[in-house]
């Protein structure tokens, strides 16, 4: 017995040492990257389509592009880890609502006029005015370039509206509220509209449409305006009328398909989701520009592309950005992944202009604005706005008190 035990101890130590060596031998990705490769972070499910999109670029330039798929939920943590460790990708997709947070970390490469001068596709004039150049500059510095755009439009089930005696999608917010009330009267479990409880952009869009602003002349957030009060009236009014569901887990697509929520404000991705989920509904639903009040401004969202500050392949990264900003690439990206271009030439391309849905999107994009580029819209300002509104409509909190608390919490936030 003793001899077995004597032999076992050194064997265990050797195994342990090998295990530890195995743990440390995997080197971090960025350390020994050869100059001819790029690591690109792409959000959501688009990474496979992205691989196909950049295949011609890889052949032509010899740069090897490695796509890393990052779920939207995980980007904050992944970015924080990359900043803390100093090792990030070479190119990354940045949702515009996160642009300020990422830019503030100092981890992005500045893409000034001289840096992009050699790349004709990257000139600011090529892109939509709402996102080009200064529009997405943080602290006066451009650290990202536009890639794909997103907006919000009105989806309506024309067949259900016709049954209720409504001939066309509502053209004004007041009409929408009245129509929603009519549709909610169809019965139990039937609503007229759906307000996503996580959508912090909707009350802002409502404020803009009342002709108001949420950023004052000094660049500070200011919700304490009469137009915002009108927007809150509309938001709380829809709940008070019983026109919208109050549960937080209402499924938007299923609701639209089943008819429980025949009107929705959402983005182009929903059109794809509806077509996939219910192809038999073709012809029974339509997309139109947002209802208006004093204006019909919608949200301009989407993603930009940034280059990591300490990238080892700056030239390759800029070449890739140049390729992705070419009108042909933007058109084929829309064809394969359904994300709208930001390059003006791509939006007016015949391949896109023929699509009736894209016509509505383009029309809306011409009157769309970015959310204010505050330090942390998703985690702080937007969250405070949502919490205030949701506590009024879902838990019956006192409106004036809650709004006053919101004004106090957010008034110190600046876009500068």
């Amino acid at each position: 017995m003793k001899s077995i035990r004597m032999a076992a101890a050194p064997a265990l130590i050797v195994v342990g040492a090998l295990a530890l060596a195995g743990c440390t031998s995997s080197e971090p990705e960025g350390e020994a990257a050869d100059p001819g490769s790029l690591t690109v972070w792409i959000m959501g499910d688009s990474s496979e389509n992205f691989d196909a999109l950049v295949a011609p670029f890889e052949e032509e330039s010899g740069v090897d592009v490695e796509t890393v798929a990052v779920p939207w939920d995980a980007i904050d943590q992944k970015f924080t880890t990359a900043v803390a460790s100093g090792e990030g990708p070479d190119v990354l997709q940045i949702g515009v609502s996160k642009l300020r947070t990422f830019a503030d970390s100092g981890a992005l490469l500045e893409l000034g006029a001289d840096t992009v001068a050699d790349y004709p596709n990257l000139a600011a004039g090529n892109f939509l005015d709402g996102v080009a150049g200064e529009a997405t500059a943080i602290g006066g510095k451009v650290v990202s370039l536009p890639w794909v755009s997103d907006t919000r439009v009105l989806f309506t089930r024309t067949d259900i509206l016709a049954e209720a005696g409504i001939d066309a999608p509502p053209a004004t917010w007041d009409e929408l509220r009245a129509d929603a009330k009519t549709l909610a009267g169809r019965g139990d479990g039937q609503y007229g509209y759906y307000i996503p409880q996580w959508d912090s952009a909707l009350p802002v869009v409502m404020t803009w449409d009342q002709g108001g602003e949420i950023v004052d002349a000094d660049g500070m957030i200011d919700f304490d305006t009469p137009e915002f009060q009108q927007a809150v009236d509309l938001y709380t009014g829809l709940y008070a009328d019983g026109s919208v569901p109050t549960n937080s887990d209402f499924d938007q697509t299923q609701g639209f398909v089943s008819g429980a929520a025949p009107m929705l404000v959402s983005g182009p991705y929903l059109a794809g989701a509806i077509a996939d989920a219910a192809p038999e509904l073709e012809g029974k639903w339509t997309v139109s520009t947002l209802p208006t009040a004093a204006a019909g401004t919608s949200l301009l969202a989407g993603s930009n592309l940034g280059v990591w500050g300490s990238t080892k392949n700056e030239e390759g990264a800029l070449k890739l950005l140049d390729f992705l900003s070419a009108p042909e690439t933007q058109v084929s990206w829309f064809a394969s992944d359904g994300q709208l271009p930001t390059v003006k030439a791509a939006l007016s391309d015949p391949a896109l202009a023929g699509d009736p849905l894209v016509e509505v999107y383009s029309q809306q994009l011409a009157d769309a604005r970015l959310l204010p580029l505050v330090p942390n819209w998703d985690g702080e300002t937007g969250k405070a706005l949502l919490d205030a509104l949701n506590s009024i409509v879902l838990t019956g909190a006192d409106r004036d008190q809650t709004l006053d608390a919101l004004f106090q919490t957010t008034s110190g936030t600046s876009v500068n």
Partner: protein
Amino acid sequence: MKTRLTGYAFITPAMLLLITFGVLPIAVAMVVSLTDMNLAGLGDWSRIRFIGADNYTALFADRAFWQAMGNTALFAVVGVPAVVGLSLLIALGLNSSQGRFFRALRSFYFVPAITAIVAVALVWGYLFNTQFGLFNHLLSLVGLPPVPWLSDPVVVKFSVVWVAVWRGIGLNVIILLAALQGVPKEYLEAASIDGASRARQTFSIVLPLLRFALFFVTITTIIAWLQFFDEPFVLTKGGPLGASTSISLFLYQKGFSASQFGYASAGSVVLFVIIAVVTVVQLRARRADVDY
């Protein structure tokens, strides 16, 4: 001398790992909690300012912090007895026979514990869905109104606890079952000869012999439930207006979503102190271990 050195040699690697990955992060968190570190500070250390106990004063004045504390206390008070009690009952039941069916049942109870939480949350999310979920559909079949499982501020706490209890039973059943099989059969035979019923045997002989295993299961379950995170994170992301936010989820949201590392570190130090106090109280309250 030689024996003592050998002992130290064996525990040193584990101790080094424990210190590096257990003690050092806590020390770092204590230091960071005295600063205003955020994402900008993480990228450039010169932007970090030392602000003393400001994070702690802000934390104790934060309504959301107290809501998360209250939720966590409720989760622990409801969840821990549920997990320990149900695990014990199931272990006692599974121990009553060595047949193949019972052995298969053991794996059956263990499966929820090893299933990926995201898959679990996806399925339970669909089951709980107010409009299209199975539970409300079954309720409608018997004429009852739909229950807002994940939308009502009170019901959501119990929905989330239930999923966590379902997941947590597995491991504890295995531990208690192993302990049950260590109960000497002679004691039970002697008791039945003396005329003790099955229930009497269980209460007076089996349970006292299980004290150490029960103590271990209770401590680990309490520590785990005070750090309750997975289920609220994937099912409700903190629930309607923070109704199902546990303290761990609150710290995660503050630290990673809002990038307020200093503030979140202060919270994590507070949580560490609470768990340490609870554990020490339990260790002291336990009577001296009697060897049967």
